[in-house]
């Protein structure tokens, strides 16, 4: 993150520069979801975005993930300015550079685990049979080798999220974006998913960005950004924030 920026330029995978997002309601009323956020994320970092509902946390997350365009400012991902890209280039970035994980899992309900995981490979131009082979391998990595031909409705929530993680990983992205990945899971399953994410980060050297309320996810984070009223209220690195049971003692931070 910016305040500890002694690393090499090339180690920065994401840089947002003063991004704002304004929603115009009706003809005059403007809602400022983001009021200028500038952060930097290092390659291989585990970053958590924290903030109450309505703080702009999700909006910021979507901008970083190339899922939405800011009103002003720009987002650099792996050296590319997202604002200068056309729709097909953005699709390429989403397909090859990013992996997305959602609170609601967002699996395609009519496709089996294997078909879901194979989809990003097919979009990347792989032949369907090769895509399925690669999908099978990654499903084994996340521990679902025995559930490949099941539909999402036939497996548990935790297993659905594992399918989603496999789907996010299958194109070997540089960045995983996880929006409340444990929000729909029970405590134990949530912990398993966090552990899996951490393991994948180590194994594939992926940068992980999560928007979360989950305190368990904070303890796994390298960096935490608190978003409040559309601004980056506070940035803290591992060891600088205290996670106690149920609450975060934010006030003790400098």
């Amino acid at each position: 993150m910016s305040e500890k920026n002694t690393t090499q330029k090339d180690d920065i995978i994401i840089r947002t520069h003063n991004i704002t997002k304004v929603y115009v309601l009706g003809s005059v009323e403007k809602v400022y979801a983001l009021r200028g956020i500038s952060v930097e994320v290092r390659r291989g970092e585990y970053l958590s975005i924290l903030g109450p509902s309505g703080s702009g946390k999700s909006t910021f997350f979507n901008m970083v993930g190339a899922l939405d365009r800011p009103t002003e400012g720009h987002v650099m991902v792996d050296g590319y300015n997202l604002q200068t890209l056309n729709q097909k280039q953005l699709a390429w970035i989403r397909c090859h550079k990013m992996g997305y994980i959602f609170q609601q899992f967002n699996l395609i309900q009519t496709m089996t685990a294997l078909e879901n995981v194979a989809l990003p490979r097919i979009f990347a131009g792989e032949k369907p049979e090769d895509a399925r082979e690669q999908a099978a391998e990654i499903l084994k990595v996340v521990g679902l080798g025995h559930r490949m031909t099941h539909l999402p409705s036939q497996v548990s929530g935790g297993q659905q999220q594992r399918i989603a993680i496999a789907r996010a990983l299958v194109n070997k992205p540089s960045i995983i974006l996880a929006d409340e990945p444990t929000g729909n899971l029970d405590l134990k399953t949530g912990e398993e998913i966090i552990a899996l994410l951490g393991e994948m980060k180590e194994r594939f050297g992926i940068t992980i960005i999560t928007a979360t309320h989950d305190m368990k996810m904070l303890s796994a984070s390298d960096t935490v950004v608190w978003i409040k009223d559309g601004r980056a209220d506070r940035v803290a690195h591992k060891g600088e924030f205290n996670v106690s049971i149920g609450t975060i003692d934010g006030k003790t931070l400098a």
Partner: protein
Amino acid sequence: MDENKAIIPEQQQVSWLVTVQVSWAGIKRRFFRSLITMSGVVLAIAFLTYMQLQNVIVKGLIKADDQVLNVLLQKAGVDIYSGDSSDRMMLLLIILSLLACLVGIVNSMLMSVTERIKEIGTLKCLGALDGFIIRSYFIESSMQGVAGTALGCVIGLVVALSAALSNYGRYVFPNLAYGGVFLALLLSFLVGTMLSIVAAILPAYMAAKKQPVDAMRVEE
């Protein structure tokens, strides 16, 4: 972090063949939902076909100007002497059935797409191009449209002929204008398939044009 580090390639379109392969899995597993969508098309087209064919059949019988047949026609409530005004009446009825058909088909196709708009957003996150989404909805809706329309045409034809046969018996076939029957079936077929495809592709296209996050925000 220079902007000119390298030019990002454009995502390549998935071929038609692969799109069919990918879509087929979904179509297969949504079979019963597809049947419900299709039944909307079937009913609408059967109604439109029936109205048109009834018109063709009755016109042919009036033209025959047979005494026994005229009595049968009047018994069935056909005004055989008013000519133009009854033509206009029939045309009005056909236009009305066309409208009912339009609403029926658009409604069932629209439903089957809007309930999956969130899925369109997810596909875009995975790297799908708008073209892939439009193609896959084209494949699905044209299959439903063609199958539903064909079935609707057959049902409309069978019902119209059996009703005519029960009213006018042996007079029906000798006085039938086969060209008119063909045109009526052709119109039904075109209306059914075109409407099904347009009513499915338009909302899919609009959803695909959105930013992925806006599509995913749609409540199911």
